């Protein structure tokens, strides 16, 4: 029982990340009709906003380390600690939440530049062209990050009060010793909130209504005198922010390096395909579903029957969905079926 609960939580965590990335992907596809292979890179750039913020806060001066006698060794002491003492130390410890403040404007800007500077020229081109150009863009962005931050994963820690584990065994009556890392719980709650905000915006605001109308019938909305293109550009920015925030918050779970976006991109595309291209609900549903399936497939009981199933389960599901229901779980009839 404990392990089922824990694997379920693991699944929700992964699912949260998949859903956030897939939501952005499918939003962009639904509005702009672009298959954006650079979307994973946006997740990665978000993660590196957290790294950049951490590096900014820990700008240091080198001080001689007297405890090393063999040779001249130096310790790095952050300016913030020198200027503000313990308060400086705690600011550094909270760098991940603080970096959200940097990530939102940074990702909006990056999204805007990406859309205006490159992607808009490919609206009318074939999907194959779009994939090639965005994939190329993803590689360029990756290499820029690699030159700047190096190839190694950079550890980023969660704020001290939530760096440990929550005693979920006691909460759920599962007995002692069943714990779950706080930050992973926070990640799930965070992704649920972001998803709710995006859905709320699309569902309950006039702006969102126009965007949804545009997704249905772009021409008619245009004829009504609305500059739908402008709104779609804003949607691209929104998708970039969502992916970026997903990246920022993921850094304490897995130390980011320049390939983290690509790792997620492939899975997120599978999520979009399973959920249905252009279906927002489908992306979220499939994100959580595949995250949970992947976690359960890693249980030893399952692996003893199907060895290696944890590595392929997601693709297996995708194959079955494509064969049985090519439009995806919640996809509109006709999409990918013609």
């Amino acid at each position, binding site marked *: 029982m*404990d392990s089922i609960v824990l694997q379920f939580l693991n699944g929700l965590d992964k699912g949260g990340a998949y859903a956030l990335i897939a939501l952005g992907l499918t939003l962009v596809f639904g509005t702009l009709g672009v298959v954006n292979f650079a979307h994973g890179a946006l997740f990665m750039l978000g993660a590196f906003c957290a790294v950049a913020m951490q590096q900014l806060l820990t700008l240091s001066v080198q001080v001689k380390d007297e405890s*090393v006698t063999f040779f001249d060794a130096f310790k790095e002491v952050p300016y913030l600690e020198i200027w503000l003492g313990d308060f400086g130390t705690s600011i550094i410890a909270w760098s991940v939440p603080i970096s959200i403040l940097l990530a939102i404007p940074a990702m909006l800007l990056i999204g805007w530049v990406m859309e205006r500077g490159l992607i808009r020229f490919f609206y009318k081109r074939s999907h194959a062209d779009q994939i090639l150009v965005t994939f190329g863009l993803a590689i360029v962005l990756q290499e820029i990050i690699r030159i700047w931050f190096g*190839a190694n994963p950079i*550890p980023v820690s969660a704020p001290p009060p939530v760096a440990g584990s929550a005693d979920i065994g006691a909460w759920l009556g599962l007995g002692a*010793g069943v714990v779950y890392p706080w930050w992973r719980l926070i990640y799930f709650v965070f992704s649920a909130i972001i998803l709710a905000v995006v859905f709320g915006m699309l569902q309950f605001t006039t702006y969102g209504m126009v965007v949804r109308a545009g997704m249905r019938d772009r021409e008619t909305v245009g004829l009504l005198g609305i500059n739908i293109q402008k709104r779609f550009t804003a949607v691209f920015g929104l998708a970039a922010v969502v992916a970026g925030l997903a990246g920022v918050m993921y850094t304490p779970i897995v130390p980011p390096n320049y390939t983290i976006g690509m790792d997620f991109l492939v899975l997120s595309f599978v999520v979009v395909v399973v959920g249905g291209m252009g279906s927002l609900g489908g992306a979220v549903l499939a994100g959580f579903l595949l995250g949970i399936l*992947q976690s359960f497939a*890693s249980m*030893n009981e399952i692996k003893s029957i199907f060895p290696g199933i944890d590595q392929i389960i997601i693709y297996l599901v995708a194959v079955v969905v494509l064969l049985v229901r090519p439009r995806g779980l919640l996809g509109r009839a006709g999409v990918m079926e013609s």
Partner: protein
Amino acid sequence: MTDRKTRLDTPLSRRSILKGSLASTTALGALSLTGVAPLHFVSQAWAEEQPIGNFPSKTSGPSITLGFNVPQTGAYADEGADELRAYQLAVKHLNGEGDGGMMNTFTPSNLTGKGILGKKVEFVTGDTQTKSDAARASAKRMVEKDGAIMITGGSSSGVAVAVQSLCQEMGIIFMAGLTHSNDTTGKDKRRYGFRHFFNAYMSGEALAPILAEEYGTDRVAYHLTADYTWGWTQEESIKNASEALGWKTAAAVRTPLGAGDFSQYITPVLNSGADVLILNHYGKDMVNSLTQAVQFGLRDKQANGKNFEIVVPLFSRLMAQGAGDAIKGILGTTNWNWSLQDDASQAFVKSFGQEYGNPPSQAAQTCYVQTLLYANAVETAGTFYPPEVIKALEGFEFDGMGNGPTLYRAADHQCFKDVLVVRGKENPSSQFDLLEVVKIVPRKQVEYDPSIFGGELGPYIPAS
């Protein structure tokens, strides 16, 4: 000791070495000993030196080039960066620059501090990306394009095995860096490949008695294993050694290399009935899996009425640095640690520390030593001709390199020396003082019969 030194001070000519090695091989052949020295080899000793690899085309100029093939990206990039630092330092010392480091303590040594055979040592580097195909491609480039006469590097046993067999085909000597799989000098051993680093078998033999001493003989272990050659042999070695002492194994689960998030593999440990988690991971994988195991409460857990324990059979200071507090109190083994007090280790630490502001890692030590050993073998052979250099390394006994008296066993090109059992230090006295040496396990305890792992070294003269 004095005897040996005096003997070494007499200059060795190539002719005398050839004579010596011919005499010994003939004797061995006559005694028909286990096929260690194949009979056809006797005739090779008389044969003219024929072109092999980049000999003699790239060894006749005023300088020679060594190829340093290390992971500059990927899961083992930290180790790779430190390996590269060590190689650069070794080149400096070979060329007579700097304070000489372990050149001053290494015995018996024919090194002169004037390059190798009077030729200036230069180097090129390649990025293995911790991938076998990339590593082979960069090794090939360094040999074919840059004219490297020796390739050295790691990390990752998958890479080492792949590059080693390429080097055998190309007739280029490969001095392995950090590679810990039994296969490197076991079933995949090659005539042109040499390993100074210890292996998984030795880790198991050294660590198991300490584990039994600290945690008792009634334990149930759960293995998480990196899914490639090193992980498999490490798992097997620790399993065999610990089961021999009475431990049971609950499960052994393979995880993909570079998984990042190990949560889905760690949660099943919680109620598997195991009371020890053995992490057969290295580098970033180990940092991630250990940190996550601690986050999931494994270290505070009680199982079967005992404290739950985590063991990391192979670890290094670099990993300890990455893992932070999670590593404290955890047992494992290491090839070498900078805190060792012998003259050689201290000379190396001083030299490396002054150059880079950090003490060297175990990866750095093995790479530095390998470079010096190769150079010394060339000096001893008096030629760059690979078969003669190989013969100078085979069965070579030396000291003053930080691990006590060491033997390069001829039968499998594996070095035998003491193994360190270490523990993550609870109260470090400095930012680098992260491992405490629990026991220096004597070489005798980790020796084994080379035939247990099978494999063939292959010919001195590669088939062309």
